[in-house]
């Protein structure tokens, strides 16, 4: 299954709403996770767990502190899945 950037964003929006009550309309590519969406390090762990069930791959947390915006997150997850495939 190939995951496009758009569909990944849509999926993450659903997770954010289900897990953290964040309105999908409030989320866009430029949203900053911490400042705009109020996602803390504990939320990040939960988010990774949800992403794992979505991609059926364990997403590593190692680079998460470099992820500042939604756009960064999409890049990181897609890069991770890509690298895992190779």
């Amino acid at each position, binding site marked *: 299954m190939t995951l496009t950037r758009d569909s990944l964003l849509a999926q993450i929006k659903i997770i954010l709403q*289900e*897990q*953290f*009550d964040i309105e999908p309309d409030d989320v866009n590519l430029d949203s900053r996770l911490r400042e705009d969406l109020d996602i*803390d*390090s*504990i*939320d990040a*762990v*939960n988010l990774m767990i949800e992403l794992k069930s979505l991609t059926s791959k364990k997403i590593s947390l190692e680079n998460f502190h470099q992820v500042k915006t939604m756009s960064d997150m999409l890049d990181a997850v897609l890069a991770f899945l890509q690298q895992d495939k190779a």
Partner: protein
Amino acid sequence: MATGLCFLLFGLGTLLLALLLTPMTFLLPIGRQIKSRFARKMIQLSAWLFVRIMWIMGLLSFEFKGLELLDRQGILIIANHPTLLDAIFLMSVIPNATFVVKAAMARNLVTRWMVSLAGYIPNDEGVGLLERAAATLKAGNKLMIFPEGTRTDDSGMQFKRGAANIALMADCLIVPVLIDCQPMTLRKTSKWYQSPETKPHFYFAVLPDIEIARQIDQNRPSGIQARQLTAIMQTRLADELRQLG
């Protein structure tokens, strides 16, 4: 002048306590549990003494309400954090509690032994902090944390979600303590030598318990529970503070 003297006294007192406690860590052939109980007792006594010295020197006055509610096992004690002295005051009155302390205290050469011997938890451990804190509560200890993570600044009280997450993980009773100081002194945004014109009065009131199961739906995702519980804790303290006027 007197303020400076107290800072000096606090420094010396802390050093003395550290010198006294450090050899215990290595030398005395007693269990870890007893050492930590003893360390906490010594810290409580020192804090008690320091508060009285400041009072005798006429630097401040203080009053406590409902302290007996704090002497229960396995409770999570939370408080707002207006001044630099909040933790000292609370340490002087809560027996045998695990404090979540500023990470710098766990690194500082003088205080690190005390922190480690008393089993205090540094606040920089992320997810590890939650697990350690929840385990402490489940073992029946009481835990004290300032949910703001630092002193209140000019933009007002802003709770982080760590305290709520600890409470949810341990499924324990939450006991809020309201702290007020009038006129305000030793704030995050003021310099320590800027003493107010009139003597500050510190007021500590233990508020009614917050019971998790009665406040939030525990079937919802943990991220949402943590948000709701954080809002409840913050509102409770902010409302009480407002009522004081």
